[in-house]
């Protein structure tokens, strides 16, 4: 159950949004050939596993809205809130299976969530333009998803200890 005792999650998301916007997106410090990880998604998966679909959806929507308002540069307002609310719902769906967690389970769920988020984001963002979906998957969706999954797994292993 979410309560104000878990203010650390609020701080974590604020930190995540600032870190993503400034360090990752603006300063480009963790970029590998233009591919950047998404720390907000990583925080969202841990939140979803702990608090379930309803809260993860609401938080995903809120964080996405904040990012869309000021931190995502020329992006549309509503796009990030849409993709993150769906991703939050997806992560929260697996809260019930929490006891069956193992490394592979976490990896597959995280990768799935990244793919859903990135595919929706790039597809809606480029909607109306003549974009090859397969090319978009290979060049944008897959690299970002894999990179985010790798970073997420590293954080998972650190927290597991």
């Amino acid at each position, binding site marked *: 159950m979410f309560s104000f005792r878990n203010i650390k999650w609020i701080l974590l998301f604020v930190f995540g949004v600032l870190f993503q916007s400034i360090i990752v997106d603006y*300063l480009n410090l963790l970029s590998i050939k233009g591919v950047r990880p998404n720390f907000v998604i990583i925080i969202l998966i841990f939140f979803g596993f702990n608090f379930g679909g309803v809260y993860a959806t609401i938080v*995903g929507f809120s964080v996405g809205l904040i990012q869309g308002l*000021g931190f995502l540069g020329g992006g549309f307002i*509503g796009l990030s809130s*849409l993709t993150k609310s*769906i991703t939050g*719902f997806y992560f929260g769906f697996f809260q019930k299976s929490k006891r069956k967690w193992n490394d592979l389970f976490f990896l597959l769920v995280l990768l799935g969530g990244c793919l859903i988020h990135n595919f929706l984001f790039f597809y809606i963002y480029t909607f109306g333009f003549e974009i090859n979906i397969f090319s978009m998957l290979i060049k944008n969706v897959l690299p970002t998803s894999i990179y985010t999954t790798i970073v997420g797994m590293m954080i998972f292993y650190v927290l597991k200890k």
Partner: protein
Amino acid sequence: MERIFKNVYIFKEYITVFLATVLSSFLLISNENKQIENLREKTIDFTGKIKQNFAWVKIVFNTIDENRELREKVLYLTLENTRIKDAEIENQRLRKMIGFKKSGNLKYLPAVVISKGFHQIINSIQINVGENDGVKKNMPVIAERGLVGKTFLVGKESSLVQMMNDVNFGVSARILRTRATGIVNWKTGNIFEISYVPKSSDVAVGDTIITSGYGQIYPPKIPVGVVSEVSDSVPGMSKKIILKILVDFPSVEEVFVIVSDRKPEFILR
């Protein structure tokens, strides 16, 4: 009513995501709404101020990358500049050669020096023309500034040229101003000497030495050198005359082989 609440509770996740999706879609299609734009402007100002505080980090990293790129550019431009200067010098040299070639009516075959010091005994260079190009043994070889030597070994596609600074080299020469003749030989290093010029002949430092045309190999009036030292106080009947050769042998890269059999006059430049 209770049933509705129960269903809402059971499907709360789906209802929540549905509402979030609807609201997000509404925001997406309202992006051009004036109020939304105003709100974006304010938040972008706010986030811009935050990012400005970290701009120095970006400048530092960009400076490192920019520095590396500029260094590479400087290196490329330096090499390009050297190449252009080299091409300019070569251009001037070739223009002189073309001018020199045009002034005479001998047949000149241009050639490039492909190696130096090839032969074990004879001080020589190798050029990239041979029998297939009409070259024969004992043909004179000149550069734009003057005499270089003569061919002594001719292959199908390349030839060896005995240089003037070879111990066995000799050419009949004339002092341009006074017409006195002698034989030019190499002594050592950059020192060449004209032998057999009588002490009674008028020779002065600065006099130009050219080929006399005597003998079967060298046409007349090919520049050879300039007198740098004259002395009468030597035993015998001949002056001691030291020459400074016009051609700088270490830097010779292009030459001409005189392939004509005739020995007409040509203009000294």
